[in-house]
């Protein structure tokens, strides 16, 4: 047992950054469509595998990212329009449906890519390490850190400075009233679902390069995302950021200081927060 050193702190922050990318999509969908999309982890894994395949065959990491985001957004479209539309308004059925889809996608991934562990190839310019704060640290992880910040900024601007963003926030508040104001909320829902899914895809490629991809990676990231959203509050971008930081850092602290209690270090505080703020730190009743 010992204190955290800078490298461990940076590891916690980069993990938090990845968590934010994945959980921000999760919380957008949860907040607006009221769907706990349990297939979000499977979309992450699929996105990772697609990125791995495309990046591997073209030799271009960013092409892998693009392909993954597009394909996973398309999978989001199919999931929402093809399946979820039949159970709209039934919360439990929606959740069970997404759970079923998660299992199917996981199996499909096993058929397509097998059970081996893969790692998405990192682009040349992000390989190696650099000095930061007097320590030697992988460039790629710094890239992940910055990417998380960039995704936060982009989402924040989209939500707070564009008309679509205003519609999404209004929909989180009161979807029925948005609809009564002449706006086809289904389109806003679908756009959000695809955006949220594509963020899972982005996370899959980015995370697949340093956490590697393997058949149970989907449920692991899903559990972490759930913790982030429960702590941060449904539908809140700032909540997702703060939740990611908490979970990312607690995860590192747990692994470093209390390895045998690593999960408890995350879920203990989560339970404590829920006891005092049932809607999460930034959640609001509707």
């Amino acid at each position, binding site marked *: 047992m010992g204190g955290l050193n800078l490298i461990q702190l940076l590891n916690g922050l980069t993990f938090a950054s990845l968590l934010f990318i994945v959980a921000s999509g999760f919380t957008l969908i949860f907040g607006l469509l009221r769907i706990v999309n349990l297939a979000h982890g499977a979309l992450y894994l699929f996105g990772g595998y697609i990125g791995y395949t495309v990046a591997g065959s073209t030799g271009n990491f960013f092409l892998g990212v693009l392909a993954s985001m597009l394909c996973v957004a398309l999978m989001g479209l199919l999931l929402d329009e093809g399946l979820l539309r039949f159970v709209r308004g039934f919360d439990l059925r929606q959740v069970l449906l997404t759970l079923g889809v998660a299992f199917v996608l996981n199996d499909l991934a096993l058929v397509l890519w097998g059970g081996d562990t893969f790692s998405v190839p990192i682009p040349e310019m992000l390989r190696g390490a650099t000095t930061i704060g007097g320590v030697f640290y992988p460039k790629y992880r710094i890239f992940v850190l910055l990417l998380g910040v960039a995704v936060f900024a982009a989402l924040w601007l989209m939500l707070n400075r564009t008309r679509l963003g205003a519609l999404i*926030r*209004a929909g989180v*508040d*009161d979807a029925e009233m948005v*609809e009564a*104001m002449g*706006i086809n909320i289904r389109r806003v829902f679908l756009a959000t679902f695809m955006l949220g899914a594509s963020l899972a895809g982005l996370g899959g490629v980015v995370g697949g390069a340093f956490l590697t991809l393997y058949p149970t990676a989907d449920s692991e990231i899903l559990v972490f995302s759930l913790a982030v959203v429960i702590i941060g509050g449904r539908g809140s971008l700032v909540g997702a950021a703060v939740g990611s930081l908490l979970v990312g850092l607690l995860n590192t602290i747990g692994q470093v200081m209390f390895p045998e209690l690593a999960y408890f270090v995350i879920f203990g505080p989560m339970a404590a927060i829920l006891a005092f703020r049932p809607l999460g730190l930034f959640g609001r009743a509707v």
Partner: protein
Amino acid sequence: MLEIKDVQSFYGEALVLNGVTMNVKPGEVVALLGRNGMGKTTLIRSIMCLAQPQVRAGSIKWNGEELLGLKPHGVAQRKIALVPQGRRLFPSLTVTEHLTMIKPTSVKEGWTAEKIFDMFPRLAERRSHRGNQLSGGERQMLAVGRALMIDPEVVLMDEPSEGLAPVMVQHLETIIAELGKTGLGILLVEQNLYSALAVCDRVYVMETGRIVHEASAAEVRTDHSSLMKYLVVQ
């Protein structure tokens, strides 16, 4: 012209509207009176085709076209606007966003945020406040402004005076009267007969899911004794 005919609406198996027939002609201000729980909001929700209640019989025609079966946004796109009971503003949107979310700022035809602000200077001063930071009167003004942004031909106002101070109620009456003069049709749900009479052309009274009385405002002004048994004594 809005024509409602023999409408029966249900919440689950509970019949709440039992054969409502009424109409609102173009540019007319029509009051719908009735005590608590008589079905006024249910009728408004039926016209907007909201998910609840379920309309199982009758027809609601707008300029000859059947509204039943449309989605609420389809109803609104046909220029029927809603000022819902309890305002239902969006807590996370600013005053300006309430207006611009409906119509992009680039569109200059019809109602714009600036025209709404000209009409309600109090809102202009609070344009960057959020929906839940406004006073009761400001909230109601914003709810009216938001409805106007769809450039309606008829506005359904569900108890807009509810919970407002008397001076605000008077202000609201002025606004409704002015809007009525611009040729806008208004269906005004009210519990207070005198407040309704100040602005309306015609009156319907609803009692347990039926229209039990219809009269012109002029008739009611000369003698409203026959109505009083259906209304709250103020």
